[in-house]
């Protein structure tokens, strides 16, 4: 490819801001469709670390802005009361084959970020809930919300040094998880461990699909 005077990767905003992927991060023209998996968990639980461990591109950040009516302020009808929320989501990419691309999105689990979930979980294959044993309550809410939305998920326990070492069975009971939902140890820094966690999710989805009387 020759670019003559205008380099297609040069930024219109100036040389410091990249205007596109690095050459090595370009998808083949044959890429026809993508799927996504969402990694949910509280701050610092290792979502971005997990994404980075398996992604073929350096994790990127996308922003979503949402103008929300003031939460829980229903009695101010007619009064402009809006807040603008901007939340960053890190994501990565795995080329499955020449046609298919898998995207992994890390999203915060706290309730105030659930507005992000609407576009995010729609069409997602499923989710990995990254569990921080130091802050179980965040994951508890997340799991309830996923169940309500009918999003299949597995739970990855990212054990931090010095965090409480509960046995899996105890964690399952504490999280009120059904026996059918897989729970695995997941070291978010370790590529193999993250891959296995994603495979656990895929196998679980496979089980759900093949067990379903009407697979569409």
């Amino acid at each position: 490819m020759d670019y003559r005077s205008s380099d297609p990767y040069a930024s219109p905003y100036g040389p410091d801001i990249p205007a596109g992927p690095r050459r090595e991060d370009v998808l083949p023209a044959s890429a026809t469709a993508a799927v996504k998996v969402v990694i949910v968990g509280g701050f610092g639980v290792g979502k971005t670390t997990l994404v980075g461990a398996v992604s073929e591109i350096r994790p990127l950040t996308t922003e979503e802005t949402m103008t929300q009516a003031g939460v829980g302020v229903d009695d101010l009808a007619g009064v402009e009361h809006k807040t603008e929320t901007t939340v960053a989501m890190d994501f990565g990419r795995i080329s499955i084959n020449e046609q298919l691309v898998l995207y992994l999105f890390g999203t915060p689990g706290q309730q105030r970020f659930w507005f992000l979930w609407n576009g995010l979980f729609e069409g997602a294959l499923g989710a990995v809930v990254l569990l921080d044993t130091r802050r179980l309550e965040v994951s508890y809410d997340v799991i309830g919300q996923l169940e309500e939305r009918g999003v299949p998920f597995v739970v990855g326990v990212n054990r931090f040094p010095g965090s409480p070492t509960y046995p899996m069975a105890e964690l399952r009971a504490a999280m009120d998880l059904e026996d059918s939902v897989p729970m695995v140890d997941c070291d978010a820094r370790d590529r193999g461990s993250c891959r296995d966690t994603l495979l656990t999710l895929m196998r679980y989805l496979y089980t759900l699909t093949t067990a379903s009387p009407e697979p569409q």
Partner: protein
Amino acid sequence: MNGAGPDPATAPGSPDRLYILTGGQDRAEKRTELDLVTLIVSRTESEAGLQPEHAAIVRMCHYPLSVAEISAYLELPVSTLTQLLTELLADRQVEARPPVPAAALPDVRLLEAVMNGLQKL
């Protein structure tokens, strides 16, 4: 994809199925459903006459790129980018390759493909 009637593919169990496209005041009837992982590909080599933001998108999408990636590279919120993409789609400057449609449960062959791909990591 057409604008006639509700989408029959609306997944059961997701009553508040939202479109990412926001606003829509002036293009309400042309609303395009764009996902974070919809792949965008330019249909044109020429950026003549395009606004800088549109030109930047056309330029970086010579090869397929997801909405999320474009948003990241341009440092634009997804909702803003969606607006720009809707305009480019309407003018046929880019094409959109929608994600694998999500049934209530994913297709077995799709899952097998993903598993095979992951095994290679």
